[in-house]
């Protein structure tokens, strides 16, 4: 079928974007609108489903089918949409509070089932819409309105959580890195299964600069590593740093120092079904490690949920003795009264 050439503007709705000026969400919206025309999917086949929170206003700004759900439940609503109509390209827009607190259960079960949809997790480590309470990703000790002396809770690491829930796709990007983000959204959409993309997003109002150590252009290149498949794990402004495996763990090294050469570095394999290294990469934190960006895991180890469901139904229908409810009602033990 011929598909009309789409451009990013085709996905902009007529609604005024109401996020705060300077909020990272604006950049995410733009990056996603840039990714969609590249997918070869018809305009009417996109559906954006969200929960509650700042990020969840997203569907209103998209000129696609959209559903602004209730707090935490976007993953469940979206699972229903995709299972009912596997033709749709379904996107879940959610935040750290929405998906990892109130919607934690749906988040892990979505991933476990491997429904073929793309979940974009805006992680700003804070509740923005309710004006600044700590979230399940706030670092230990974070001072907020509900933790005036600092939180005593340990934060979730979304990557480890997603892969631990048997995730088949996990990627990470930063809101301001729009080019990388767009590439990642394209890959997430192409992955057949649940794709989790964690976006490190800045909330200028309530957790400003929470990612600044790694997102600031001044030193970003030395503090993040953008993983690329089949490429050695090199990073740094001067591309002079790398990652090695040592004593079963990851080790950041200087290339051409202490006898380390490029050949000693790890080569990224996002398709490796073995999740151990992917979890280790996802867990790297500054300052001990560079923070991993890019597609960390992209593994086609199992059929997606809605495909498996559709196949079972097709199989059952092809073997069915009864083709209508009438025939089902007449099957089994019946008797006639004359």
């Amino acid at each position, binding site marked *: 079928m011929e598909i009309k050439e789409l451009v990013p503007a085709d996905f902009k*709705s007529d*609604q005024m974007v109401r996020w705060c000026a300077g909020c990272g969400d604006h950049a995410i919206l733009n990056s996603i609108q840039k990714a969609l025309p590249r997918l070869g999917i*018809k*305009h*009417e*086949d996109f*559906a954006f*489903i969200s929960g*509650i929170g700042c990020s969840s206003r997203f*569907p*209103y700004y*998209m*000129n*696609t*089918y*959209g*559903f*602004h*759900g*209730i707090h935490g*439940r976007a993953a*469940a*609503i*979206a*699972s*229903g*949409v*995709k*299972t*009912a*109509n596997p*033709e*749709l390209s379904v996107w879940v827009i959610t935040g750290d509070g929405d998906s990892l607190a109130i919607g934690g*259960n*749906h988040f892990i*079960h979505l991933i476990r089932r491997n429904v073929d949809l793309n979940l974009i997790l805006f992680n700003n480590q804070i509740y923005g819409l309710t004006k600044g309470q700590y979230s399940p990703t706030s670092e230990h000790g974070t001072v907020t309105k509900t933790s005036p002396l600092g939180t005593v809770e340990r934060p979730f690491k979304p990557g480890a959580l997603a892969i631990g829930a048997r995730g088949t796709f996990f990627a990470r990007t930063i809101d301001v890195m729009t080019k990388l983000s767009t590439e990642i959204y394209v890959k997430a959409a192409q992955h057949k299964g649940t794709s989790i993309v964690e976006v490190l997003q800045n909330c200028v109002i309530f957790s400003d600069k929470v990612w600044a150590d790694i997102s600031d252009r001044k030193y970003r290149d030395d503090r993040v590593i953008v993983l690329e498949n089949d490429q050695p794990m090199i990073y740094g402004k001067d591309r002079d740093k790398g990652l090695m495996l040592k004593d079963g763990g990851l080790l950041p090294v200087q290339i051409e120092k202490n006898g380390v050469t490029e050949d000693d570095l790890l080569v990224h394999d996002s398709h490796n079904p073995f999740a151990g290294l992917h979890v280790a990469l996802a867990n790297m934190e500054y300052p001990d490690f560079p923070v991993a960006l890019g597609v960390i895991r992209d593994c086609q180890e199992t059929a997606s949920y809605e495909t498996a*469901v559709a196949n*079972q*139904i097709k199989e*059952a*229908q092809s*073997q*069915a*003795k*009864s*083709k*209508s*409810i*009438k025939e*089902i*009602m*007449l099957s*089994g*033990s*019946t*008797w*006639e*009264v*004359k």
Partner: protein
Amino acid sequence: MSKQAKVIEIDEVAIRFSGDSGDGMQLTGTLFSDTSALFGNDVSTFPDYPAEIRAPQGTVGGVSGFQVHFGHTQVNTPGDYCDVLVAMNPAALKANFRWIKPDGIIIFDRDAFDEKNIKKAGYDKDPLKEEPTDGIQLIGAPISSMTRETLKDIGLDQKSILRSKNMFALGIVSWLYDRPLEHAIDFFQRKFAKKPVLIDANTQVLQAGYNYAGNIQALTVSFKVRPADIEPGIYRNINGNTAAAWGIIAAAEKAGLPVFLGSYPITPATGILEEMAARKDLGVVSFQAEDEIAGICTAIGGSFAGSLAATSTSGPGLALKSEAIGLAVITELPLVIVNVQRGGPSTGLPTKTEQSDLMQALYGRNGESPVVVIASSTPSNCFDYAFEASRIALERMTPVILLTDGFLANGTEPWKIPDMDDFPDINPPIAKEGSKDWLPYNRDEHTLAREWAKAGIPGLEHRVGGLEKMAGSGNVSYVPENHEYMVGIREEKVNRVEDMIPEQEIIGDPDADLLIIGWGGTYGHLVTAVSEIQREGYKVALAHFNYIKPLPKNTGEILGQFKKHLVCELNLGQFAHYLRMNYPKYNYLQYNKVQGLPFIVQELKDFILKNLEEK
């Protein structure tokens, strides 16, 4: 086989099979009731099983029961008290003795009445002396030992052998009521096709029980219940859960839509999910979600994508779903919510029946959140009302709550398989591709339903959600007047459903003074009580409601025809309160029962007669 026993014809019989929850009493009862239905009797059954799957053996807590009522006349209830009680051990006797008629027959496994079991059941010495058994015929059959004897050469271990002792009991009762054994044997052949030794074992024990009953002197009579006078047609047995599942599927066929069920297992509603999961052959998509909330949210997603979507649950699950029901209300998507009521609050009495979720269904949500509420009243009409719930949801773009209960869900009765041509067409307002100036929240003038543009239709891309909508455009709106308008229109949309539902009927004497009022699953008991009272020469009428929100148009008119109004329900008076609110003119008397059990016809009659006599 000597069968010179006297044969007595009777109109109806109730038999209660009871034993340990591992004794197979549900199966025994089902086989007996199916046989009776095949024989042409009218039948009603009621399983009464414990919440614990395997409570300690031999204790009262672990007793599982199954009552079968069958007759030559119409049978509307599983029977108050039983003519025959089968007790496989002392605990079963202890748990069920209160249900035996004063002139009934107790058949018990005398091998199981040993000291250990007697103690476990909480008796001191001899249960049959401790209970007031005067007038009751006691038949102590050596069920366990004769089962062992029958199967001594079959090559099964002792445990497996004893597993078929329930068939010995079935054999005895089959002889007593002149039932053929073929149906049970057919069942063994299907069920144990892969293990033929079990076909033989069960068949032999069944036959042995039958022969035993024919041979012993204790049983001098056998009874005959002639086939009932039943409308011609093809029949099957059905329970409320299966009927509800099929009703939804039937509606989807009429509407030309796929079915999506999002659900989570919960007693006593699980049977709906199980039946839907089994209907992949008809293309049904069943989604077993991670919790109740995901159950309904996946269904809402399915509805957004264009399926006839449903979720099934019971009271505590309905509570969990309430926020999402509100979402379906404000997004105005069609959705069927089947709530199989059980004893509450909280976990309450999961396996018992009650009608105490009415207020929850009507009002248990934040904000002004109107939904259509309807209730089925017999196991088989769960089909009709599930169909109705679907038709209303689809044509009026609204969530509909269908209330059934544990009694209907698990109870079975013969059902004349309907002709689908007798059911109305279903025409949901589906938006058409290419509609000019289409807006998601434009409404049909008459029904006030908006159009349904399922995701994927070119040109109709739109957003829905939980924030208040601007009339027409559906854009988010905080305009105060708009909110008030939308609240009003959602309420009015639900109220206008009264145009598509039938008027309320009255059963009994329209010129009586007293109107009995009921709703939902108590129909069988109420209609039996009312007709028996009429037969005794009194005037009385019954209005039994299936449509609750909105109420049928003529409700006020009907209430006005009677002097006295007595609302009977299995709760503390929720429907009575609802009627007081809607029709405050009348003084509603109440008869309420909250024991997790259905009404007893006799207790209803006593109360009604008392009311009839005090003028």
